[in-house]
């Protein structure tokens, strides 16, 4: 079927302002938006620029705004968009470098703020540290995060103030805060108990809707808020 793909374009070496280009292409219902972009780049305009790698929703490279909502382009199939007009734009709230490529550095800066790594300074045992299946299950959901930024860039609080660490960073903190083997939960809670921490979340649920890994992000943020209030890390 014929599909109209309207794409946000901006070449910093040529354009003063962004504009949109529309391409008419033949597509199958099972085509991914990424397939369409690859086809457009290879057929009509080699200058069209976007990031991609694994093409099946795991590497997190191709987060973008498709018909007004954040998706990974490789996980957005034409049949699921219920439209023959597709508008593709870069993630919101980030500086556009070129076309669909945004500056990810501030996103990773926020990520690094929450101590997103395992901390346990006691000498490790000769074998594994034990952890029950229930303790492991406690933080299972937030281990799925691929740092694609679809959540953070769908959050109105982040749009309003990009100093807010954002849902992705809180998800990363949650993954360690509730890991029974980790010892720095209190320190992470202190970091998030800040004017640019968890209280910027107004439970709008955009992040949860946007997450291509189906992480219950709003719930995870709620659990971090509760832990700050109660000091209970279980």
């Amino acid at each position, binding site marked *: 079927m014929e599909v109209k793909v309207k794409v946000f374009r901006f*070449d*910093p*070496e*040529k354009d003063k302002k962004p504009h949109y280009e529309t391409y008419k292409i033949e597509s199958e219902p*099972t085509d991914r938006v990424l397939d369409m972009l*690859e086809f457009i*780049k*290879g*057929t009509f*305009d*080699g*200058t069209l*620029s*976007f*990031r*991609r*790698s*694994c*093409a*099946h*929703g*795991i*590497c*997190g*490279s191709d987060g973008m705004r498709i018909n007004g909502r954040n998706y990974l382009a490789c*996980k957005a*199939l034409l049949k699921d968009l219920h439209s023959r007009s597709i508008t593709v734009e870069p993630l919101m709230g980030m500086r556009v*470098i*070129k076309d669909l*490529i945004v500056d*990810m550095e501030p996103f*990773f800066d926020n990520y*690094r703020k929450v101590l*997103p*790594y*395992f*901390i*346990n300074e006691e000498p*490790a045992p*000769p*074998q*594994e*540290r*034990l*952890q*029950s*299946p229930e*303790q*492991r299950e406690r*933080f*299972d959901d937030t*281990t*799925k*995060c*691929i*740092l694609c930024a679809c959540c953070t860039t769908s959050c109105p609080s982040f749009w309003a103030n990009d100093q807010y660490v954002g849902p992705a960073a809180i998800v990363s903190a949650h993954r*360690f805060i509730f*890991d029974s083997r*980790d010892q720095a939960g209190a320190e992470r809670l202190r970091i998030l108990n800040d004017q640019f921490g968890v209280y910027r979340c107004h439970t709008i649920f955009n992040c949860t809707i946007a997450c291509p890994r*189906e992480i219950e992000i709003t719930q995870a943020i709620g659990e971090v808020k509760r832990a700050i209030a109660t000091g209970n890390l279980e």
Partner: protein
Amino acid sequence: MKKHQFDVVVVGAGGAGLMSALYASKTANTAVLSKLYPTRSHTGTAQGGVGAALGNDEEDHPEWHTFDTVKGSDYLGDQDAIEFMCFEAVQAVYELEHYGLPFSRTAEGKIAQRPFGGHTNNVTGKPVRRACYAADRTGHMILQTLYQQCIKNNVKFFDEFQVVDLLVVNGAAAGVVAIELLTGEIHVFHAKSVVFATGGHGRVWDITSNAYAYTGDGIAITMRKGVPMEDMEFFQFHPTGIYKLGILITEGVRGEGGVLINGLGERFMENYAPKVKDLASRDVISRAMYLEMQAGRGINGQRYLYLDVRPEVVNKYAALDGRKNLDGSPYIVTGEQILSKLPDIVDFARTYLGVDPVTQPMPVQPTAHYTMGGIPTNKFAEVVIDDQNTVMPGLYAAGEVACVSVHGANRLGTNSLLDLIVFGKFAGLRAAEYANGADFQPLPADPSEYARAQFDAIRSAQGSENILQVASTMKNTMTDLVGMFRTGEGMTRALATIQELRERHKHIPLTDQGKIFNTEMINIWELGNLLHIAEVVTASALERTESRGGHARDDYPKRDDVNWLKHTLAWVQEDGSIRLGYKPVVITKYQPKERVY
């Protein structure tokens, strides 16, 4: 042009690159260069597990792991290296756990393990639980955990830097040349040690599980600098890719009891591997699938089969096989258990197939998956450049880009993640140790000359060739003629086509003449790498007149240990021609014998 100086430069930020960086940075000034943000690396897509004989659930030994790997390699793996990897495996997996990796757990709180193809109890011959897993996203967790530890240890990253050349001075590594994607600027990294950890080249074939980024850059770069490539004819086709898309469905599905079913509704692997059936080694299963489809027994006569993990099907065949739980009770699964052990697989099937694997079988076909060959190294990840295993000072390789060789003619599932962490670690240790005792080689007068020449040629290309057409001709040719089954006649044709495509590639005009994120220019360069590699793969495969592991020939259907129990080495010579040589396989304890599963 910007210049940098580091003791150690690591190229690639997947599992092997990050492991190497973690270790090298402990004692040496280290930088990691990656064309992707590290967490985008292909390691993240690995699903089923990392192999190590922890014996958490049942008796297991590194010796058994060693033998299984030797057998899996169709006796082409070097046995000293395999033994080293399998014995180091146990400590390496505990180390990942100590880094915080969230493995799934047994009831006692230990690392959970599942069965995987080719991994057996060497006494009974039955599958053994050896694959240490974190649900079905083990690679994701390894990649995330190692990246997190690198952040903790302040490892220096140059993200979205495309390395395009290796500098060799006085026969030793002297650094690399890279393009910063953000600016298009050329950077020269002067280094004492260079570690390549750039992954494989599955994008040579049409149906593949491999990422767009998997264009064999490290292999292409080093072979152009005179480093030979080892065993390039050996490439793995994984049995279960999603029909038409090639997206991987982990072998862990079969580990949990899933079975392959043909168009007649039969579990056909019983006929090919009576003992372990659906958990035979990958080359064996992929070939069986191919033969079933050739015989018209695909689903509805089409080029796909079913992978069935519906609980009633799993339970039926588990009962027939007499499969038991650890406590001796019959093995029975529920839909919820399938969901909790294989959440990503369920998600892939729903998203890309519109199929719910708990209630419907999944259409699958073999998919190009893993590069067994690559840059030759010894077991300490030092690159060796001839049939005498002479070490090239300062150059290291680890992970899929390297050929140690631990996988020989066919890799066992879970051994790729193991390869990354074990040889990544030793690459980092050795690179730092060497750097701490060596001086910098002087840089060439114009270090980026060769890199600039390559990109000047791409920028000024004249003609009307199209990148997608050149790429798809390559992929179709390689799939049809240098894929799962090969013949001398077909490969001769393929070689001519690939050489013709390498000429056509020079006539793809570049639309984007900008500097900032010129992905079109990089994509054309990457396609050049794939074409060059396709040529080396085909030339190496054409010469090997036998069938072994992933290299199966209709015209030479038997393994030939008398003439071919040896590694291929392929040199790209100054005039562009390919010269082949050979070196012996290291055999220590296990004499080659017939391979039966």
